[in-house]
């Protein structure tokens, strides 16, 4: 059995969205290096509960890197020091005995802190609601190969669809820009035939909602790409920009003519 380690945590504690928060120091003693980062927090929280103190609030759900809930900035990096890894999949063997770990919530005007490390990521839901879908009539499923799709597009769309909406990109961006997330959600549809009918309306609407949520704008620092646990590429942002430019150049106001009905 690997030797257990002792750590010091500096955790952002904030009662609710209205209160000011502050860093509080906690020891994390006798931590197994085989634990996940969230399990380490569970151990610390159990200690706090036993002492009658308020446990540290953090979001989590699947604990297997697919739900995107477990966002927190660990030592200045969203989801911690390992590439392509969510906080829940980070293991304590990434830390050394005696390390100090600073834990902060995602910092963005668009993501108010609800409590401690938990933020309200409703802004992402509203961006999806503004256009991140296709309007398809339901019915019996089509034959799988009825729609020809180039392999390359299928692969790129699948890569974009790997986005779990965790918002590490916003947290890492010096401008708190959401463009990596938004561009992934635009690209996964823009690359497929089913996404074409609403392609240029979608990009306008989702960008409009992104701006209305007061995210910052990309200055091409590339921090998002480095922080993304799912390897979403900045190429998607270029595709979003391309589609937005085309949509703006070719947009026609609705006329209601042409036999609308």
């Amino acid at each position, binding site marked *: 059995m690997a030797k257990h380690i002792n750590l010091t945590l500096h955790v952002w504690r904030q009662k609710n969205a209205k209160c000011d928060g502050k860093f509080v120091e906690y020891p994390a003693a006798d931590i197994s290096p085989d634990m996940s980062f969230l399990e380490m927090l569970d151990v610390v929280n159990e200690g706090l509960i036993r002492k009658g103190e308020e446990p540290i609030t953090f979001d989590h759900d699947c604990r297997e890197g697919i739900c995107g809930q477990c966002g927190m900035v660990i030592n200045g990096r969203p989801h911690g020091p390992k590439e392509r890894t969510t906080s829940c999949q980070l293991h304590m063997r990434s830390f050394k005995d005696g390390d100090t770990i600073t834990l902060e919530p995602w910092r963005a005007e668009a993501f108010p802190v609800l409590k401690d490390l938990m933020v309200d990521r409703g802004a992402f839901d509203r961006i999806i609601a503004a256009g991140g879908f296709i309007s398809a009539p339901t019915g019996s499923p089509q034959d799988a190969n009825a729609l020809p799709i180039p392999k390359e597009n299928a692969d790129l769309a699948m890569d974009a669809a790997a986005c779990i909406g965790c918002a590490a990109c916003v947290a890492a961006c010096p401008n708190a820009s959401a463009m990596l997330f938004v561009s992934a959600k635009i690209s996964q549809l823009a690359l497929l035939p089913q996404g074409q009918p609403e392609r240029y309306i979608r990009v306008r609407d989702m960008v409009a909602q992104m701006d209305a949520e007061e995210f910052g704008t990309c200055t091409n620092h590339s*921090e998002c790409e480095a922080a993304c646990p799912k390897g979403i590429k900045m190429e998607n942002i270029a595709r*979003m920009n391309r589609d937005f430019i085309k949509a703006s150049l070719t947009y026609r106001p609705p006329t209601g003519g042409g036999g609308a009905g």
Partner: protein
Amino acid sequence: MSVAEQSIAGAEARGHGFMASSVGRKVVMAATGIVLFGFVTVHMIGNTQAYLGAESFNGYAKFLHTMLHGAGIWIFRAVLLAATGLHIWAAVSLTLANQAARPVGYRAQQPVASTWASRTMRWSGFILAAFIVYHLLHLTTGQAHPNFDPANPYANFVSAFKVPAAVGFYIVAQLCLGLHMWHGVWSFTQTLGLTHPRYDSLRRNFATGLTLLVVGVNISYPIAVLTGFIH
């Protein structure tokens, strides 16, 4: 109204035109940036006339002032003024939005992928703006020049670089131009959507090559004057 029409109407109702949008203002920044870096590149090439002596250099200056019956230079000036104005407008408005987007910062943020050049674009841009004003007063209109002669641009150029403080500011501004161009040239390809994995290393190399060329040649002028190579 269909769902699609409703959503367009919604975006319109929010007053969300191209120039108000984040991507739109980025495109303005990139397009005007291309005009400006195109200008600095041509300006650098034109000034190499200095190495051919007073006659060539003054002849080139005369050509600039007389092309298209004298209208050419004013067309250039109008385009440059508009590009600079729009570039600064987009830079200021996006910077304010970006700062507002993160009102509370991190205690321990670690840059991983960004570069020093990308993080200092606002500062290099600000110094460039100050330099542009100074440069115009120095070598175009002459108010900031010790002995300006409108009829002899070559003499103005040579005597300008005999003042150490002027050379110092000139070189600092060129280094800022280098930082700004190195990130900017790569950045505008991304902003305008001109990316493809096959050309990604080309984009970086193009930015590096162009920056080294422009800044290198520009800095060679004061050095050539100070060492007496140009006199």
